[in-house]
């Protein structure tokens, strides 16, 4: 499912094929529906189910890079697989479009796809370029962590997969107390100050603990930490100066892909400080 964050999408389209994953674009995909949840749950469920049923029709698995979309779809899958009555109701709606939810498709986020399916060995093989010695703070983002009972791609209390991937790229990623803290994103619409404060606090904590930067895998978190970095830092009186980039961007760089192709120029945070650009050795 495509995202509105080009840098994320570009880097995914560049890196995955290198790891033997073929990306197919399914026509007819729509928004996952999550943003509407507070207004009309049924509609959200319908929209998610719709996307899922398209995958069903094509008989292929779904890569959902946005944790929030991933959550929406997983939740829909949970409801529909668990509640036959609801499944009937939704399928009745879907039939109008000649669709049907079956539930064969598997859902992947970048992190579990790379860590569990592709495997760290493959990553290590693909690495062409030795990156400078970096210690990057891993940020997961709430939606791929919780709610755990729904089965999320990573452990909700003690996630480790991103660190493992980074390590296989030759990048250190130390543990830090604020790792599970929220990016503040969800509060942005109705509580901007608090929202930015949360973002700021985490950025501050990260820079305070001497990390070289922050790696993440969520468009929304990216927006908060990357695009809104300056504002956020100011709001907590911090001079945080933290390069923030997508996991897939860092992977791409390690695989020796030209940074332009990875949309590194789209990152607003000081990614250049990392000294990652330059030719393959």
């Amino acid at each position, binding site marked *: 499912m495509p995202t509105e964050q080009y840098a994320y999408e570009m880097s995914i389209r560049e890196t995955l094929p290198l790891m033997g994953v073929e990306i197919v674009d399914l026509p007819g995909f729509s928004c996952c529906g999550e943003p509407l949840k507070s207004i009309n749950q049924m509609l959200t469920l319908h929209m998610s189910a719709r996307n899922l049923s398209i995958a069903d029709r094509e008989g292929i698995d779904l890569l959902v890079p946005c944790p929030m979309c991933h959550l929406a779809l997983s939740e829909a899958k949970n409801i529909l697989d668990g509640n036959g009555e609801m499944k009937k109701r939704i399928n009745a709606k879907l039939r109008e479009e000649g669709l049907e939810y079956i539930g064969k498709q598997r859902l992947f986020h970048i992190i579990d796809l790379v860590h569990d399916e592709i495997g760290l060995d493959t990553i290590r093989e693909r690495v062409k370029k030795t990156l400078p010695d970096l210690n990057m703070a891993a940020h997961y983002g709430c939606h791929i962590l919780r709610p755990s009972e729904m089965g999320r791609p990573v*452990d909700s*209390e*003690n996630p480790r997969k991103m660190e493992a991937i980074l390590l296989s790229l030759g990048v250190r990623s130390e543990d*830090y*107390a*604020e790792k599970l803290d929220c990016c503040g994103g969800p509060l942005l619409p109705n509580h901007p100050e608090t929202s930015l404060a949360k973002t700021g606090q985490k950025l501050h904590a990260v820079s305070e603990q001497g990390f070289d930067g922050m790696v993440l895998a969520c468009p929304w978190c990216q927006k908060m930490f990357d695009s809104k970095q300056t504002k956020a830092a100011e709001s907590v009186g911090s001079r945080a100066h933290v390069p923030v980039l997508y996991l897939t961007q860092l992977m791409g760089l390690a695989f020796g892909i030209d940074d332009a192709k990875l949309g590194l120029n789209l990152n607003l945070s000081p990614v250049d400080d990392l000294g990652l650009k330059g030719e393959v050795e």
Partner: protein
Amino acid sequence: MERIGVFVCHCGINISSMVDVESIVERVRELDGVVEAKSYKYMCSDRGAQIIKKSIEEKGIDGAVIACCSPRMHEPTFRGVAEDGGMNPFTVEIANIREQCSWAHDSRERSTEKAMKLVMSSVAKARLLEPLERGRTPVIPNALVIGGGIAGIQASLDLANEGFRVYLVEKDPSIGGRMAQLDKTFPTLDCSSCILTPKMMEVYHHPNIDLMTYSEVLSIEGSIGDYRVKVRRKPRYVDVDRCTGCGDCVTACRMRDRIPDEFNMGLSNRSAIYIQFPQAIPLEAVMDSETCLFHRFGKCGDGPLCVEACEAEAIDFEQKEEVAELNVGAIVVATGYDLLDPASLHEYGYSRSKNVITTLELERLISSSGPTKGEVRLPSSGERPRSVTMIMCVGSRDETQCSWCCRIGCMTALKQVILLRENLGEEVEINILHTDIKSFGKGYEEFYRNVRAENTNFFRGRPSEVRIRNEDIRIDIFDTITNKLFEIRTDMVVLVPAVVPRADSGEFARMMNLSRSGDGFLLEAHLKLKPMDTFVNGIFIAGCCQGPKDITDTVAQASGAASRAAGILSKKELENDPLIAVVDADLCSGCRICISLCPYSAIEPVVETMAGEEVVHAEINEVLCQGCGACVAACPSGAINQMGFKDNQILAMIGVLNDCSDAGGLK
């Protein structure tokens, strides 16, 4: 039986007002097999009894039907009367024409009609009843107590003081259990070892108690009154008769201070040969062959230093494991509990910082015999903590972990608040993060109020996470009373972990044939009315093996279990009810359907050799069988029957109640 007497009771007017007693007497007289039919105002009175005895004597009746009140009321009475009269008590059948007839209906005609049916069906059954004898089993007046914690100690002492021989089996080198690890006890703040040690000494010196430490129960056979138990006695590699407990070997050992000390929760180190704790009973060294160099490599320097050091020459590497066989009449199980390992809950940071500890570890830190000689210090740096935060219900009252309340956490934490202040002075900051404070026991609420009065910060809520940045610990806690989010910075976190069943309680229960409740603790026969009994007659439970409880309740339950056991041991022999299931070996083909479904494991397959061929058939242990009849109903070939409730007896009743002449058709 062939000669049946029917005795109809008026019960004053309770029955006769609604039932035409005389017409019943007249009618049943006609029934074949009935040689006597009488009615009387009060059959349960002495006069009534006389009437029955007279008929036994004069009419020689061998079976009786008493039409009166509920058998739950007077069946024992009339069985007694029959027995006195010289008739077999088990050929008496009661027809309940009061509770379930005259009192329940308001038409005399219909009541009489129904009463008639009931009496006639009872006669039909009585015809098929057989005289039965009560089985008797002699009782071995010895008791086995498993577990040497406060529960086991209390039970042993009670039983021993009653004059019974008691075998107390403890798996550790010393008795004392969890209580020995505690510094003080709530709410009285008694010094734990000060009140425990005397009891341990008493056990040690009691003439009726055989103390078997460093031992484990291997297997159990038999049933109430006569259990045969095998106990494994692990080798101490120290001659207990010689060892004086001086501890010279301990200091001499080459592995000194190199092995984590279980008793101190790994906060300090011990030697390979060690004394569990200063007040250990028996106060004798024990050698841990897992870590002893000589045991592992067959050599220890140029000779084991312990041997050199021991003037009593008590060290004996040749000691072998022994298996003792005990014969006991009753068993008290007091195997205690474990604490949930907080490492399994990553968010609490137990595995991420040395300064996150459990209440039991803190207890050891506070204890003057503990690793820091009673000085509370940060495990990481050895400095005095300025702020301590206690997190309650770690794993308790948590659907994802243990749904139950540990029942000791709140009070333990509150007690430790006092101890911490004694230890670190008033200035230390103490935060308590609780779900609710449960101070249910006698004097507990008052204790809680006192602690609350001192400047202790109570937060009601569960922290989502303990954040650790090297020495610095932070906790976000949303206080549900003030509805505010607080961030706590603290030096030391004390977790109050859930109380869970012993790790091995599963296999232990299987070995002992005991059931467990959903939470994994041993199951009592009835939560309210039989809290010390189990479903295995003669085996009782006490203390935390049955469920979390504090010392007060544990001791009470232990004494209770002891007296329940004494009730059995004090009898010469046990009488068992003959109304039990019996297998007809000639019809049983050994399909084993009955065996799996008996709740008392009373059925076993026995192999017999008939004409050189091995044939298997089920056999029911008449002591274990409680006479529910589930196996009788389930036996697909009708090879099992229940005395007093045989198929043909019940079918005969059905037939009468249906006025069906070709009834009871067992071809």
